[in-house]
C-alpha cells in the first residue's frame, strides 16, 4: 500500500465508524476536540485500525500519544513499513 492509500483507508474507516464527514477530515483534525471522540471511542478506534490493516497496536505505547488524524496516519504508516521490513 502507498502512503496515500493508507491515509485514505484510515480516513474512510474512521468516517464510517464514527459517522464523520470524510471531506472535513484533515491531518490537523483533532480526535477529541474536532471529532468529538472520547475514551470509549479510542478503544474502538484501535479495533477499527487493527481490523482494517491486519496489525496489532493495542499495547503500543505510541497509541496513547495520538491526538490528531495526522498522528494516526504517521503511526499506521510507520507500523506498516515496520511490519513489511520485518
Amino acid at each position, binding site marked *: 500500500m502507498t502512503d496515500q492509500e493508507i491515509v485514505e483507508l484510515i480516513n474512510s474507516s474512521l468516517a464510517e465508524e464514527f*459517522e464523520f464527514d470524510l471531506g472535513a477530515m484533515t491531518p490537523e483534525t483533532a480526535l477529541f476536540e474536532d471529532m468529538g471522540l472520547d475514551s470509549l471511542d479510542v478503544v474502538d478506534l484501535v479495533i477499527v485500525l487493527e*481490523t482494517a490493516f491486519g496489525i496489532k497496536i493495542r499495547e503500543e505505547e505510541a497509541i496513547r500519544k495520538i491526538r490528531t488524524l495526522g498522528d494516526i496516519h504517521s503511526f499506521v504508516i510507520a507500523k506498516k513499513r515496520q511490519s513489511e521490513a520485518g
Partner: protein
Amino acid sequence: MLLRRVVITGIGTVSPFGRGIEGLMDSLAAGRSGVVRVPALADITGMRTRVAALAVGVDAMEIPRKFRRSMSSMSVFATLASQDAAAMAGLGEEQLGGGRLGVSIGSTTGSPQTMEEFFKDFTADNSLERMKSTLFFHIMNHSCASNVAQVLGVTGRILAPSAACSTSSHAIGYAAEMIGLGKQDFMLAGGADEFHPLTSGTFDVINAASTAFNDSPASTPRPFDRDRDGIVCGEGSGILLLESLDSALARGAEILAEITGFATNSDPGSIANPDAACIAECMRQALADAGVEPGQVDYVNAHATATEQGDIAECAAIAEIFGSLTPTSSLKGHLGHTMAASGALELAACVGMMRRGLLIPTLNLDNVDPLCAGVLHQREVEELRVETIMKNNFALGGVNSSIILRRYQ
C-alpha cells in the same frame, strides 16, 4: 393502595403501527394487523413459525451517535417513546434532570441481536480482540432504562424490572408505587423489546408459536379463537409518563387517566403453564388495591396471546371474577406479542380507548373456543364511555400482573 394519587400525563409508543399513540389507536380501531411474514425465519433449522410483528417508522439516526453507540434497537425504541411521552407531558430539562423524575423501563433480556453478533465473532477464534467498548451497554439488563436516562438527562431513580411478558406492567406498577410513596414525582415507565429469532424459537420449541398461518400473517395470532395456534412475537416500546396528581395539577398538565391499582403475584405451580386460580387471585388483589368491585370495571384488556392453555386459564379467571358481564378483548391479534413492551403498549391503548370512548375488539376472533366461553368477548368496535379498565399481563416464569386504570375525575 397508593398513598398519593398517580396519573398519566404522557404516552409514547413505538409499535408495528409506527411511532405515536394516535397512529396506534387509528390502526387498532380500523382492525389492522401488524403481523408480517419474515422470510429470514425460513433459513433457521427447526424454526416453524415465519411471522412476526415488527416495529416500523423508526429512524435511529435521530439519536446522536454519542448516545446511539450504546444502544441496540430496543433502547432506540424506548428512547424515542420516552421522548414522545415527556414531550406530550410538557416536561422540560428542569423536570427531567431535577432528581424528582425517575426511569422504570425493562426488557426481557439485554439485546439478543448484539449477543448473537458478539458470540458469533467470539467463538470463531475464541478472541476478545474485536470486542467493541460499548458491547456491555447493549447487553446489560438495564440497557433501555440507562440509555433513556442518558439521552433525557434523568438524574432520579433507575429501575429495570424484568419479568418477560409482565415486564412493563411491573415497570408501571412499581413506578406508580414509588410515586405513591412520595419517592419520586414523575416516572418514565414501560418496556421495550427487539425482535430476534431466539424469541420466536423460545415459543416454537414448546409448541406455543403460531405456525399454521405463515402464508396469511394477518390471520394470526387468534386470541380466544377455536383455531388459534399460538403466539406471534413482536417488538416495540410503550412508555407512560406517570406523575403524582399534585404535581400534574400544580403544572396544569393535561391528565390522560389515573392508575388506581396494581397487583402482581407468583405462580409456583409451573414455570410455564398459567393457573386460573393464581391469575384470579392477582386480579382480585388489583381490584382490592384500587378499592373497586368487579361490577365497577367496564372493560378487561386481557393478556390473551392465543396459546391454547393461556387463553383458557385467563378466561376461566375472568369468568370467575366478572362472570359474563364485562366486555373483554385482547390486542394481540393486532399487535402480536410485543413481549416486554406489551403491557405498556396495551395499557397505552386502554388510555386511548378511554379517551376516544370506544372499545377495540379482539382481531381474528371468528369463532370463540368453547373453552374460552363464559366471558363477554368484545367482537366489534363499540362506542362506549368507560370509567374503569383492568389490564392483565402474565409471563413465563409464573409471573402475573394486573393494573387498574380509571378515568380521571
